């Protein structure tokens, strides 16, 4: 990965680099937890061969949640209809594979384009207005799209779903297997690449301007940030990401259910992101892991009402606040606290002055 080697190469960077540059470099440096997370995700290919399906599901949900984080966590745009882009991507990939070309990577691009165009077109509807109007607008768009898919049964299969989707080998080389191993590797690669791209985007001046729009729109305008253009851009990118997540679902299941456009997709992804935390890109991944494992675990011990417990966790997180929950470490002895902080905040790259 280029970012990684680029940063690693600069460990011995000029000693004369300004303090300002060093501090900014730290913002985009890879952190310990990121590296651990990716190593674990790739190691799972070999270590957890019997859990490929659930891991695949986590990867897809994670990508979908990252996509929501780009607009919610960075630009501050709330959405209750993000599932529209997911569903559109899923259908685009399914219809393309069924009627035109079965190779999945090509299908990803098609799905990305379809969702991207739809995202661009609808972005103009979320430019203005309060959170409530945005929630209602996005919800309304998603509901309309679901109904359109339902009515266009000749193309989408309607309520029965789109079946008979034959997905070919990836790049003509790798066949999907019965255990889902190829599927997981495929999804993981896509997730990794898109996360790295999103990382670049949010760490670049573009990402800073998004955070500025979210943080204080009045001042953002007053330092010259063209908010409307930036929001259109990130909304389109987020739609592309969601569309690709939907396409991954189609490719790994060879089927598109009308359920991809259901309201609960949009609600779940919001829940996943809030579980994992907004505004740092990894909230989507961590939320997807927590949500999926919690659901699987709870539905074994309390099959009838696992949603109750998910709901309880959600309420606790929102009411108590993540910062307060995250303060459990203040009960540890001081020396241990310091060490812990050092490990968590450890970054690839150079050290700051006065920091040993």
């Amino acid at each position, binding site marked *: 990965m280029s970012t990684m080697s680029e940063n690693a190469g600069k460990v011995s960077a000029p000693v004369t680099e*300004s*303090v*300002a*540059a060093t*501090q*900014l*470099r730290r*913002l*985009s440096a890879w952190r310990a937890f990121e590296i651990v997370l990716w190593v674990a995700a790739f190691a799972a290919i070999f270590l957890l061969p019997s859990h490929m399906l659930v891991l695949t599901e986590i990867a897809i949900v994670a990508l979908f949640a990252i996509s929501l984080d780009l607009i919610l966590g960075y630009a501050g745009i709330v959405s209750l209809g993000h599932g529209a882009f997911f569903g559109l991507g899923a259908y685009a990939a399914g219809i393309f594979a069924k009627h035109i070309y079965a190779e999945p990577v090509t299908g990803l691009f098609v799905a990305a384009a379809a969702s991207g165009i739809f995202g661009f077109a609808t972005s103009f509807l979320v430019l203005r207005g309060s959170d409530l109007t945005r929630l209602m607008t996005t919800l309304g768009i998603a509901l309309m799209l679901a109904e359109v898919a339902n009515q266009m049964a000749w193309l989408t299969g309607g309520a029965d779903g789109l079946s008979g989707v034959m997905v070919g080998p990836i790049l003509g080389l790798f066949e999907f297997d019965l255990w889902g191993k190829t599927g997981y590797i495929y999804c993981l690669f896509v997730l990794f690449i898109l996360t790295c791209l999103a990382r*670049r*985007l949010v*760490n*670049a*001046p*573009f*990402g*800073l*301007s998004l*955070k*500025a729009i979210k*943080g*204080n729109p*009045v*001042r*953002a*305008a*007053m*330092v*010259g*940030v*063209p*908010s409307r*253009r*930036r929001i259109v*851009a990130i909304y389109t990118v987020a739609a592309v990401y969601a569309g690709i997540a939907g396409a991954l679902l189609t490719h790994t299941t060879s089927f598109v259910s009308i359920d991809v456009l259901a309201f609960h997709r949009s609600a779940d992804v919001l829940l996943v992101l809030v579980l994992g935390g907004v505004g740092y890109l990894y909230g989507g991944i961590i939320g997807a892991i927590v949500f999926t494992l919690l659901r699987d675990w709870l539905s074994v011990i309390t099959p009838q009402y696992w949603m109750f417990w998910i709901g309880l966790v959600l309420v606790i997180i929102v009411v108590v606040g993540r910062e307060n929950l995250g303060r459990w470490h203040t009960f540890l002895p001081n020396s241990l606290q310091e060490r812990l902080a050092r490990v968590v905040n450890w970054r690839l790259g150079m050290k700051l002055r006065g920091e040993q």
Partner: protein
Amino acid sequence: MTAALETRHLVKRFGGFLAADDVSLSVEQGARHALIGPNGAGKTTLINLFTGALKPTSGSVLLDGEDITGLPVEQRVKRGLARTFQVNQLFREFTPLESVVLAVNERKELGGSAWRPLVAHGEAVDEAAALLERFKLSDVMDERTSMLPYGRQRLLEIALAFASKPRVLLLDEPAAGVPEDERHEVLNIVRDLPEDVTVILIEHDMELVFSFADRISVLVSGALFTEGTVTKVSADPRVKAIYLGEDA
């Protein structure tokens, strides 16, 4: 010579309330122009009309002779109009460094670049560092803005406005709320602003106004009450009456 900033018959109504009443004002290039008036006179409203935060009910605003009345805020900034706010408008979650880098990036049209990290845009970083130095914020550049003492936050307000290299700088009570012992730092910064930048200052401290400005406009109930040189306005008994009657 065309005026740096000019307004023609500017009117702003909030419902039935007249907050700007036919204001025609002209500020020369490089001027130090003070805008004074009692609380609620409409000084901040006027600034909001200059910058585009508010749209006028009627009338027009000209920057360097060009009509900018229809332009959105960020395009006026690009044309060289910047302001500070009476009540801090900062990026509370950002560090001063990030805030200033943002402002410099936007001025350099780098804000849309989505590939290379902030640090890779070296010129912008160096410029931001120099600005922080100039505004005495270097030592706190890596702290969260919301944690800074109020005086420092006021300096950052000015630094952010200054980062967009304005030709006309609007300062809305820059020292408001700053504790006495930090005040002089803010005022020194205001005094040391480069001469070629046109400065419009709103301030209630008459001593400061008289020492800083070369021209003064007095605003009362949304309308221009009088305008002139410092000597003229400071000697005007009606101005004294307004200030003694309503503000002192």
